[in-house]
């Protein structure tokens, strides 16, 4: 209880301080990187409901940055779920393009663009960088007749559409599975399962045969599941026996990075300050520990590189989207 009171008191005094200082001028105590930015709390919009990975990572990093005063103002997380991110982008547009309103997303953003869901594209954003990410895998039930991915592919080639894949159409599992099916030349039947929880439920209950999970989701569950193929660049140390699609000769990888985005017109000064703080956070041992424990890779990709990578991927996704629509 004491701890809580202290924390509440801390939060209150911080907020009071923030408003006081905000009205007087730049924060004198912050050994900030640039003068003038940030002059008010930075709103980080997460286009999902609270509780998911993107949300939790954003909150962790924001907390770390606040703790170490890497930015003179706190980062606050705002959840804006809905409309495949359209809601979040609208929120971003409501704020000024001065770096005080940014988005923390992942490559589902590219899928929304490829599916032409919202009225936004890459031109609307300035990339701040990737703060780590993780890759997914394909799993079957542990009592399944398929021990390896080759057996599964052979079976599907012999009897097309004989197995059911749980996925949300137009979501990451659909695109990753679609790329893999294209590369290996097979076809599955689909059943709608729009969340990881739904996919797990379907697979374990015998209502689907194949489902895609983040490696961390698999490692937390393990029981009842058998991973067949991993869509990362290299095998994971936690599952040394699971091959990557790449080493089997299929050019299919998916690294779902945590992507920080600002409005396109954000000034350089703000972008630099934010990127610097994010980069420092990614080097922090506690953050690295959380990432490793959740089989996420903790890395930092600067904004321009992240944007170039994403542009390339979007082209690929556009091709797949054309076959769906």
């Amino acid at each position, binding site marked *: 209880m004491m701890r809580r009171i202290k924390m509440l008191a801390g*939060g*209150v005094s911080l*907020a009071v301080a923030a408003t006081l200082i905000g009205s007087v001028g730049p924060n004198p105590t912050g050994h900030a990187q640039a003068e003038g930015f940030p002059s008010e*709390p930075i*709103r980080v919009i997460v286009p999902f409901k609270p509780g998911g990975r993107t949300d939790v990572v954003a909150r962790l990093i924001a907390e770390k940055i606040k703790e170490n005063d890497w930015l003179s103002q706190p980062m*606050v*997380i*705002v959840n804006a779920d809905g409309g495949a991110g359209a809601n979040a982008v609208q929120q971003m547009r409501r704020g000024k393009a001065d770096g005080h309103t940014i988005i923390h997303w992942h490559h589902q953003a590219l899928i929304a663009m490829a599916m032409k869901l919202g009225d936004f594209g890459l031109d609307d954003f300035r990339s701040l960088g990737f703060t780590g990410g993780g890759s997914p895998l394909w799993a079957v039930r542990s009592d399944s007749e398929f021990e390896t991915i080759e057996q599964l592919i052979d079976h599907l080639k012999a009897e097309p559409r004989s197995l059911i894949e749980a996925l949300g*159409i137009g979501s990451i599992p659909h695109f990753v599975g679609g790329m893999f099916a294209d590369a290996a030349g097979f076809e599955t039947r*689909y059943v709608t399962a729009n969340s990881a929880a739904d996919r797990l439920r379907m697979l374990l209950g015998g209502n689907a045969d194949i489902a895609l999970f983040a490696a961390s989701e698999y490692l937390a569950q393990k029981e009842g599941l058998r991973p067949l193929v991993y869509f990362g660049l290299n095998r994971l140390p936690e599952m040394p026996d699971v091959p990557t699609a790449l080493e089997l000769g299929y050019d299919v990888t998916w690294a779902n990075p945590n992507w920080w985005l600002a409005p396109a017109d954000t000034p350089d000064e703000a972008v630099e300050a934010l990127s610097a703080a994010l980069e420092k956070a990614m080097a922090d041992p506690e953050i690295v520990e959380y990432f490793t424990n959740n089989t996420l890779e903790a890395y930092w990709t600067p904004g321009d590189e992240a944007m170039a990578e994403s542009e390339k991927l979007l082209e690929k996704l556009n091709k797949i989207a054309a076959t769906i*629509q």
Partner: protein
Amino acid sequence: MPEFSRRTLGDLALCALVIAGSIVLFIGASTLPPPRFEPLGSAAVPRILGGILIVLSVIVAVQAVVARNSESEPSPERPAAIPYRGTMVLIALVVYVGALDFGRVPFNVATPLFVLASGLAMSRLTFRHALFFAALGLGVALLLDWILSTFLFIRIG
């Protein structure tokens, strides 16, 4: 049309609106992609619902017209109803949200004004009431703003 009571007219208006709505459903459904992953597709449910709504509207309309003579019970409206009050509160609400959304009026300013307006609309117009509602609105606004900004980090506006 003197032979139609208010209730019958209300029912007919409802049916007209619902039929208009189902036409919107049909128009919207006509632009949807054809079924691809399963036989129903996106457009089936809007069409089915549109059809059901039209059928129900026709039934309700027929019932209303047939029953218009046998209507005996007087509608049990509340006696002391002052209909303009609700309208005033609604207008106040729309102006309030409009001010917050488009006008970007600060929450702590708009809320006391709104509580003042809606409170007075529902009670007698005296100076003491006005003072009370303004103070109440300010109190509620400050409290909510404090809770939202401190714990939820939500800024209204």
